[in-house]
């Protein structure tokens, strides 16, 4: 956690060479988006690579969004919702979990590293966790390198 933060803060763009991944994040309105807001209010720093799209529920995220994000130049995608049992709509995150479990398998089978699709649970109270997730996902995708598929 501390490492991730320092990485984010010390590695100014000017000092960095190499690849900066583009990551798109689909965040559920009730938990993760609010958690990301909390990270902001608490001034917990993290890398700039992820840009968030606000959706009502992780269950709203169509598998095609992920595929199209990759198609259109994203290097990785993060879907983040409420913890199991906490979904504002009771069960959306459970459906999402199954959907992306399968999508990752489809990726594997078709030769796309499934790690390009990440999923997390992050509640509205977990600002610090959000920062950690961003750092972690950014690092993972950075290691995978740019996506030049589809």
């Amino acid at each position: 956690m501390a490492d991730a933060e320092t990485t984010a803060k010390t590695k100014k763009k000017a000092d960095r060479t190499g690849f900066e991944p583009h990551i798109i994040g689909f965040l559920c309105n009730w938990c993760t988006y609010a958690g990301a807001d909390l990270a902001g209010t608490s001034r917990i720093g993290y890398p700039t690579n992820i840009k968030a799209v606000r959706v009502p529920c992780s269950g709203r995220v169509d598998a095609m969004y992920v595929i199209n994000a990759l198609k259109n130049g994203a290097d990785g995608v993060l879907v983040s919702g409420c913890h199991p049992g906490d979904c504002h709509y009771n069960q959306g995150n459970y459906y999402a979990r199954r959907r992306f479990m399968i999508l990752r398998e489809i990726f594997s089978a078709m030769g796309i590293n499934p790690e390009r699709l990440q999923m997390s649970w992050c509640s509205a109270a977990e600002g610090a966790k959000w920062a950690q997730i961003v750092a972690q996902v950014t690092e993972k995708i950075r290691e995978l390198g740019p996506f030049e598929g589809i």
Partner: protein
Amino acid sequence: MEQLIQEAKKLLEENKVDVVIGYRSSPLPPFTRPAFIRRPEDCEQLVFNCGSVYNLTRYLIGLGEKPAIVVKGCEQRGLVVLEQENMLPRDSYLLIGVGCSGQVDERKLREGGFDRLPEQLSDELMADKCLYCDQHNTPDADIFVGDEVESVEPRTERYAGLDEFFAQDYEELYHHWTEVFSRCIRCYACRNICPLCYCEQCISYVNMPQWLPRSVADNNNYLFHMRRVLCMAGRCIDCGECERACPVDIPLRTLYKRIAQKIEGFFYGYRAGNNREQLPPLQDFNKDDSADFIL
């Protein structure tokens, strides 16, 4: 065969159905052609043999007539899926069950250099799906004609060879599939013949937003087929029609089966078409589903 003809006749004579959908012989035996029989006297044309390869259930949706249909054991699973998806109530057709001990694979026949079938359909010429078949006799049939096939031991595992094939690394797999899909001419035969592709408007035609670019350039075929894999996830019954219909020999079943294999592993042994009461995996969830991949 005689029983099939007699039963079909009876159905039409008694006006129980408007049409009997089955197979009739073709100029290229043992292959057959689909037959739509509406008059009792035409029933003599009906045949069933190892060349009755078509999955006739494709014709049922939007038929507008009350049909009786000849369905092989493996294809009946598709009817279960269609019933689950509210496309085809069970009482909208009469199911004529048959015993099938395997269907010939046109491609194997061709590649093997045979101009006609040997007396006994050997395993070498049999369609892959028949080699692991565990449903030789149509279940849930309203009328069963002919003899039941005694249980035949499956020759191969249901998912034989998949683990080995997919052990390749991502790069190899990616190159394999881009190359394979570069052959695709987007004739949509795979989609059109699939008994489970019944959308009013296929997403590949939608252009606001354009989910799937229509040109064959830019790896768009790969995208199209990825979407098809997604559509088939948890639904494909491996009737093999897509692969049979493909003019450029794309091994589509490999992908569909791989996902079916994963789904069976993840979701408590789920197999599409096994049980109408069991919700398809992507319309269902279990609080204890694996969460290993979640950060």
